[in-house]
């Protein structure tokens, strides 16, 4: 469909006929778009925070590879659901060939008690390699999205520690242990025997999540392997170059496991069995965003429908004349659709600039707050990225254009003579 320059001119000049109405309609679109992009910018920021915290700081990886059914049954039967060294080597061979993979490392998970003198406290621990500690700590995604958490570490990192059995504990747990360095770790071996070993607290840190803040510890892989008397691991954490590929790559891995009859299962970090906090938080925020988007879209549609109806009432004779000289209702609906399209483009462009300015002002203000479920305070940051704005802009512009098209088409159907004799208000 070719649109002539005369139609563009006519459409843009028609917008200036009733400037106040065009401005009010444009403001409604702009305000809605601005609100959407700023809220979307907040959600995007939270998503990045949760993703980085889940994947890197809590060492989940973009994909976790467990023994088949291990996610659900590992804690009841660890001996059966640990990944043995042979299977782990097969997995290493597979992952080494994949260009999507940035890094991978084995992890061992255990529960137990951490004791100082007569006080002992339950822990949920994760054993990692020193390379994984360094990788997560120094990753640019962590620097970008979670620099605060990264810097919330007191003491030497695991990868820098010279201690034989170094342990990182959360600040809360460290307080329970009266901030003493030498502790005793107690737990069950994979054969359900009791075991204990001495360890040294080298570091205090925060998990970033309230739920895990008073029970978490991180240690090195040999420490837990000794405690649990095993040479196996719980899962392999796989870090991808592009986190958007987590789902497709986990599917690819699963099909490789099936083809090679390897009893392993790959799940992405947003699978609620392993990333409950991430999925819970994000599903809630996405639902609110969807509702907000619906609300804004309704306002845009009603504003445009109202403005167009009034425009048509004022221009009914003109539209009748155009029909008389040969334009079809579709042609005229298209013309009014172009008007609405231009208005929506202008409103959205202005809204984009306004939202960027508001975001800049908010981000420079360094507003601190404590989001639910997050340990401690964080900066209130808005990130209305251009790509995010585009995601909201396209449907809004489409809704405004289609609404104008449909309203016009409906209103100018019928006998042309009636349009020509109808009194304009």
């Amino acid at each position, binding site marked *: 469909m*070719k649109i*002539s*320059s*005369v*139609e563009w*001119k*006519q459409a843009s*000049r*028609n917008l*200036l*006929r009733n400037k106040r109405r065009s401005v009010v309609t444009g403001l409604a679109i702009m305000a809605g778009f601005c609100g959407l992009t700023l809220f979307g910018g907040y959600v995007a920021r939270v998503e990045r925070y949760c993703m980085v915290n889940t994947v890197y700081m809590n060492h989940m990886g973009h994909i976790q590879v467990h023994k088949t059914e291990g996610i659900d049954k590992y804690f009841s039967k660890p001996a059966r659901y640990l990944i043995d060294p042979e299977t782990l080597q097969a997995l290493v061979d597979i992952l080494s060939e994949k260009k999507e993979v940035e890094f991978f490392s084995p992890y061992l998970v255990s529960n137990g008690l951490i004791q100082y003198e007569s006080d002992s406290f339950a822990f949920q621990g994760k054993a990692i390699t020193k390379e994984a500690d360094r990788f997560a700590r120094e990753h640019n995604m962590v620097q970008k999205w979670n620099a605060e958490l990264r810097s919330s570490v007191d003491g030497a990192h695991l990868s820098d520690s010279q201690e034989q059995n170094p342990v990182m504990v959360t600040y809360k747990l460290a307080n329970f242990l009266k901030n003493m360095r030498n502790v005793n770790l107690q737990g069950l071996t994979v054969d359900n025997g009791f075991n204990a070993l001495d360890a040294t607290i080298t570091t205090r840190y925060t998990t970033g999540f309230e739920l895990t803040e008073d029970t978490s510890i991180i240690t090195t892989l040999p420490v837990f392997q000794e405690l649990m008397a095993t040479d196996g691991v719980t899962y392999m954490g796989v870090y991808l170059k592009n986190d958007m590929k987590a789902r497709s790559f986990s599917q690819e891995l699963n099909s490789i496991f099936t083809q090679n009859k390897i009893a392993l299962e790959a799940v992405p970090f947003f699978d609620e069995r392993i990333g409950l906090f991430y999925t819970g938080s994000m599903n809630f925020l996405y639902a609110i965003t969807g509702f907000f988007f619906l609300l804004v879209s309704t306002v845009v549609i009603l504003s445009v429908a109202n403005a167009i109806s009034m425009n048509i009432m004022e221009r009914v*004779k*003109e539209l009748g*004349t*155009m*029909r*008389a*000289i*040969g*334009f*079809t*209702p*579709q*042609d005229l609906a298209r013309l009014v659709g172009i008007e609405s399209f231009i208005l929506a483009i202008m409103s959205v462009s202005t809204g984009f600039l306004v939202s960027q300015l508001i975001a800049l002002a908010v981000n420079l203000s360094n507003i601190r707050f404590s989001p639910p479920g997050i340990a401690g305070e964080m900066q209130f940051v808005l990130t209305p990225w251009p790509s995010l704005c585009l995601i909201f802009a396209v449907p809004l512009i489409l809704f405004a254009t289609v609404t104008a098209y449909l309203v016009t088409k409906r209103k100018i159907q019928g*006998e*042309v*003579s009636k349009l*020509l004799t109808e009194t304009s208000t």
Partner: protein
Amino acid sequence: MTNQIIVELKGVHRSYQLGETHVHALRGVDLSVMEGDFTALIGASGSGKSTLLNMVGTIDSPDKGDVIVDGRNVGHLSENEKSLLRNEKIGFVFQSFNLVPVLSILENIELPLLVRNILSKEERIARAMEVLKDVGLETYVHHRPDQLSGGQRQRVAIARALVTHPKLVLADEPTANLDSKTTHSIIDLLLELNQKKKVTFLFCSHDEKLVQRVSKVVHIQDGLITK
């Protein structure tokens, strides 16, 4: 002049509901207009002459009877086909000019050429300039309608009606809103176009000056053609 019939109405009826009143605007009208005719429809206000013009212009539909324009029975055409017929074969001149206020004179005249969109921009402008010369307004191309006098606006409306080279031009009271001097110049222009371009004109009017100068007069009274 040829003797081909360009418009034919056979037993055309049209009635309207105006509030609680049922108005019979046309009561079985038969009419033939030949190519090249310069025909005036004369009648009192409410006699049905505008309704008849609307029927011929395919912007209204009869309750009963046939309207045939350039050999095509309008009753058998879809809305889009009627739009195309109007665009290709019929030009309209309205009493209040009905120009698009946001467009320049040139753009107003270009407007009917956009419907089929078969001409390039340069061709459209050339065609619009040609008819603007015919109506003597070639120096006003970039003016807006509100910058012109009533007579000039009606000339623009005539140019717009002629730009598609229609076979038939319908004019509803084309001089009703004009002063005496302008009325004469518009009548002269219409007659000149009729004679030079062989365009068929059918118009309704109260204007005695216009009626005196037409080749054919059709009288209509209470929805019936009387002579």
